[in-house]
């Protein structure tokens, strides 16, 4: 895995280059201060380049390979997080959170029905605590009618 040792350093250097290139497009019609908006991003890019270059030279041991099934679980969890973000408003907080809790619980080895039950309990508890207790706006969804 020689490529793995250099992957992190190369990725950081590429990011630094992209940041620096983009910083050159920050132009103002009449300058308000001698540095302008592009200078500080260049400082960040310089730090990234310095760190990335040193990581490249030092070599960063590739992380241990993921155990079997881990990638699938992580991809599914990520998908469920994104789905939750999209479904929160249409479904409402309680429904969306119950489903999401259950989905993550199943990924962690829970059985579906108890997972749904625990999810509903948790969602209702959060909902009453935050909406009624703290006045936090959470979407009600179709349950509000």
């Amino acid at each position: 895995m020689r490529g793995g040792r250099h992957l992190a350093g190369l990725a950081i250097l590429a990011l630094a280059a992209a940041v620096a290139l983009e910083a050159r497009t920050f132009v103002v019609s009449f300058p308000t201060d001698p540095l302008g908006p592009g200078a500080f991003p260049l400082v960040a890019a310089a730090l990234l380049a310095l760190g990335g270059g040193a990581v490249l030279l030092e070599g960063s041991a590739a992380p241990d390979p993921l155990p079997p099934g881990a990638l699938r679980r992580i991809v599914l969890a990520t998908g469920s997080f994104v789905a939750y973000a999209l479904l929160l408003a249409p479904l409402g907080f309680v429904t969306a959170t119950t489903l999401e809790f259950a989905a993550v619980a199943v990924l962690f080895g829970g059985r579906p029905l108890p997972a749904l039950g625990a999810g509903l309990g948790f969602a209702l508890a959060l909902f009453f605590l935050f909406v009624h207790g703290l006045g936090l706006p959470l979407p009600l969804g179709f349950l509000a009618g």
Partner: protein
Amino acid sequence: MEALRLLGEGFGVALQPLNLALAFAGVFTGTVVGMLPGIGPINAIAMLIPLIFAVGLPPETALILLAGIYYGSQYGNSISTILLNVPGTAAAVVTALDGYALTRQGRGGEALAMSAVASFVGGTLSIVGLVFLAPVLAGWAIRFGPAEYFALMIFAFSALSSVAGNSVPKALAATGFGLLLATVGMDPNSAVPRYTFGQLKLFDGMDFVVVTIGLFAVSEVFLVLQASRWGQDASLAYGRVTLALADLRANVGTMLRGSVSGFLVGVLPGAGGTIASFVAYGLEEKVAGDDARFGEGELRGVAAPEAANNAATTGAMIPLLTLGIPGSGTTAVLLGALLGLGLTPGPLLIERNPEVFWGMAASMYVGNAFLLLLNLPLVGLFVRVLRLPRWVLMPGVAALSFVAVYAVNQSAFDLVLMTAFGILGFVMRRSGFPLAPVILGLVLGPLMEKNLRRALALSAGDWSVMFSSGLAVSLWVLAAVSLLGPWIWRRRRLPDGGVGEVD
């Protein structure tokens, strides 16, 4: 004794019924959230900040709640460290050595009681230090100009980089990434959008709550998910949560030494609780000599780091409140909260908002007392939460993260952004990149840029202004020494040294 009179007024603020109730609520919720395996103080605070904003409390009351959460989450972290051997911060790694050894001997309850008492002693003594040292430091910091502030922030970064993880290059890259995140959004000086890719949602910049919860809490869910089997400590037998008087007496010296050394280390920006607990543990090993059995269940091995850690927490408040410079990921999150409450930590805070500063100092004391009086009897309740199976705990962590992030802007975009940072945090942690510098960079970035641009505007673009005062030059030198010194030293002494992730 001006300080004492003001502290008395502070107690007047802290002891108002609402504030007292909130201090307790903060300590309690902080303990529960901070106790969740792998969550720790930084996530507990980041998750609860949006709720504090949402309720719209006055600043001093909100700060009291925050301080309660901070102390509570540290104690909660000690509970899971001692009983489950899952330290949520690097500072707690030291406590795990003897704390978990005691649990395996069925003496976890004693370790928990020792931890609570030591935290109380450390917290109490260090507040005395805070009350006397903070005004002095603030009076001195009033002379800081933009160039000095910039150099001071460089010092904070290099101090953090030298203790965060075992690779200075990785910490530098993480710092650069944090500063980059700080520039995302509309430039306040020129209104030029930077790194927004036309996304209107990014014009206001990256919210530190979204980034923190993504990088730390969501990545934790992924990390736990990655493991193929989840060991569950079924029994969690811990015995009675009491401490024999003889044990208490035997640990008085340990707690005092831990408090003093922890406080002194905590005041240094970047050092924080991690170094403090390592130093205190090492010191205690030396003092105890050969007859002690450190690492095999020695109560002093719990008392020293716990006292030091709590004292360092208070010590870290000094640079945070008087200079506006956080020294760790957790205090960076606190700084973000202070700015969000409309307070500007800095030399003028004590003068302009005395009720805030002294009220908070007093409520830190009240919070510590609550920890001791209420959390010890409640340990049984907390352990019941820890006994919940993984498949209930981890979705709960995820759901709490969602609520906290959604509360910031009521935006689905933030939830997606949080997930993306979760993946990034997962990859960074697996590859050995420290996360704390990212948060510090994100929170300090705007202040740094403002001071840099102000300094150069005053000098009409002459960069020598950055090194024009003796104070600025000495801060630059300190920064260079703190960054490179430990690196060189460590490369010589410990081939694979390092203390892991800092709090």
